[in-house]
């Protein structure tokens, strides 16, 4: 199975808004405190972006739009990533569909 890498994906998101997921240390605190218990959100999703795996992000559209934006994850994030704003930027990117 081949994977198309969209190398400029993270840069594209940074043009939309304040996207800072590259600071994520992949520690998993966000996943542990998520009220929706979504394993994907947000760290694996952010990794897909950093790796340019646009199709994986698109496939997880429902997960991205399920996020409550409640900031429970952000309150506990040791890297102080603005997780909810990153999710909002991803929503914008998915809605625009210009990719």
């Amino acid at each position, binding site marked *: 199975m081949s994977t198309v890498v969209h190398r400029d994906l993270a840069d594209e998101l940074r043009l*939309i*808004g304040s996207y800072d997921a590259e600071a994520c240390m992949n520690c998993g605190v966000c996943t542990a405190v998520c*009220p*929706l218990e979504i394993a994907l959100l947000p760290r694996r999703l952010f990794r897909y972006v950093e790796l340019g795996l646009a199709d994986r992000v698109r496939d997880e*559209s*429902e997960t991205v*739009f*399920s996020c*409550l*934006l*409640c*900031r*429970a994850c*952000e*309150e506990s994030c040791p890297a102080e990533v603005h997780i909810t704003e990153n999710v*909002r*930027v*991803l*929503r*914008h*990117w*998915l*809605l625009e569909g210009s990719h």
Partner: protein
Amino acid sequence: MPLPTRDVIGILTDNLRLRGSVLPIPARRATRWARELDLPRGGETVLYTGMMYQLIPYIERLVRLEQRLGDSPLARFSGVARRVNRFVNGAALIARPSAGERAEYDRVPTNVAKLLQQAGVEFGYLYEDDLYSGALAHDLGADAVVATHAQRVARSFREHGVKEVITIDPHTTTMLRTVYPTLVDDYDVRVRSYLEVLAERAVPAQTQLSGTVVLHDSCVYARYENVVSEPRDLLATTGLTVVEPTHAGKLTWCCGGPAEALYPDKAAAVASRRVEQLGAAAHDCVTMCPICLVNLRKSAGETVRFRDISEYLVEAGGDHAKRSQI
């Protein structure tokens, strides 16, 4: 099955772009709560509802319909519905809550206006220019539509000479206070929640209430706007015993409501878990956000009683006509 996300979001954002609200309702409905208060029109300081509490019964009707449609073959025609909605305000035709349902949520802005008057705050109201803030569209990432709408709201503030806004709910508070300054040039409006205004005035309660309540913090108030101590300070004056649930203050647990527009079943699952946490602390729960109130109330049934904080504050403020047993 949820309806196709793109079509639901498209209808909501089309409504905001074309009609000024994600769920457009007639101005006479949105302003009905103020009818007997004789509030002055406009002024430097205004009470701003953002229509949030007034919209809740309409949203509830639509969500119920959305759940029924999602399970039917009609779900395939959501794209057609979006195209029709551009010409006909479908939501206004479909969502028709009863007078009783409307009165339940209209009571909150009335309560807040009375509390501010009792505290000696002078304020006006913008009536039909008290517009929805765009909160849901912003959360969904529809940035261009929200930016245009924010300009419309800011223009209305300028035309009315508004310098200070007192908000009623957390979502409107964070939009007007934190998001709008990033979208509107020269936006110079002081925005405070009525909870902050009342806490600052520290008006003593006229009546001491009895009973035990558990406080449910709004995620947006606590984590976005740092409004944590104010509701506690205000409830402390009422005589009520306030207990904290598992997950309180900045570590509060979401009510699930933000997922309801797109994924009602996921919203219900989160609400159910929060109701358990709250019910373990007390039978009566105080909320401070319309989304939390309706979502938790719906999940709880009769197991936990949910009421807005303004109901308790009005009762303690001496409005005996509104008193009820805690």
